[in-house]
């Protein structure tokens, strides 16, 4: 799906847990997530901390969208 979106000219960032799969599939901008059943959350945290964590991942994704890249790039934690 990332490739088809990229193909029409829209930059896309893939937030996912299993980065090697994303690389294999061909995503260009990749932001690693927390865990498979809760990529943008952590149920062990308080509501506020969890939302702050989610916000930090989304901000990283926005940063990735603003970054010029020349090939597949993983925006590390």
């Amino acid at each position, binding site marked *: *799906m990332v490739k088809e979106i990229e193909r029409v000219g*829209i930059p896309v*960032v893939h937030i996912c847990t299993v980065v090697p799969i994303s690389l294999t599939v*061909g995503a260009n901008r990749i932001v690693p997530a927390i865990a498979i*059943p*809760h990529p*943008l959350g952590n149920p062990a945290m308080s509501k506020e901390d969890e939302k702050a964590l*989610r916000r930090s991942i989304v*901000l990283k994704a926005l940063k990735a969208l*603003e970054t010029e890249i020349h090939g597949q790039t993983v925006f590390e934690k």
Partner: protein
Amino acid sequence: MIRVVHYINQFYGGIGGEEKADVKPEIREGVVGPGMALKAALGNEADIIATVICGDSYFNENMEEASAAILEMVKKYNPDLFIAGPAFNAGRYGVACGSICKAVKEKFNIPVVTGMYIENPGVDMFKKDVHIVETANAATGMRQAIPAIAKLAMKLAKNESIGAPQEEGYIPRGVRKNVFKSERGSKRAVDMLVAKLKGEKFETEYPMPDFDRVAPNPPILDIKKAKIALVTSGGIVPKGNPDRIESSSASKYGKYDLTGVNDLTAETYETAHGGYDPTYANIDADRVLPVDVLRDLEKEGVIGELHRYYYATVGNGTSVANAKKFAATFAQELVKDGVQAVILTST
């Protein structure tokens, strides 16, 4: 006697389904689950002395730790042969099988075999490193997969020569081998061309690798003005799953209006995905589709606008052809709606 260690996931190990996908690896003596049939297929010259069981999510979320722990376990049994799966079209299981096979092969220098469906993401990741027997896409193909895996594994264990992928039933590894043919290359090439012109079937001797890569688009220059859309393969849908998106092998995607939605709650949204433990997403779907945070960022002016609609499907055993078709369709809508960037989340 050829000593075999077998690797399976928590489901085939009888530990549990998705709710147990986070279990750490363990090793048990003898056969477990599909190991029974595998042992029979391997015959009298081999024995499965131990079985490693590991949760699919645990392995994928902790690849290095999981591999290291499993290698330690395997070492104690001093095997001559290592078999993983088959994983069919289970993505995390395939990645685990491929990656542990590769690790075992590198560490102990023994033959390794696994089995997967051709679209399993583990295939592209590991086909060059290990022999992967091509299987059906679901466990209903177990009866065909087991003998094929056993046969190839025994050949490798006995150091017999391995034939071409089509003959042996494994997925091509990109290895080229010199062979003698009765006709010279120029004649074979012309024969192929003639067949092609006639519209007849012919088989190329050198399939071109399929590099389906799309170059990255230029970045967003002013994110403060950008209209950003959310897309997910994590199956987040309005409560009740109005479009009845399938929990696996999805045949459709959904398009949902986020007007007036500032937070996804247990009462309003859920996941339709059958390939991970839904507990956390059902309590708070923002954990998969971060609508709450994007609304905040929209209010604060960090982004221009969150697009009115989000698109969702279930990426669980869903065919690549379907996923491609879904996205190709909605990508056109995104363009028409003036969306400038997409955040796609996957579980």
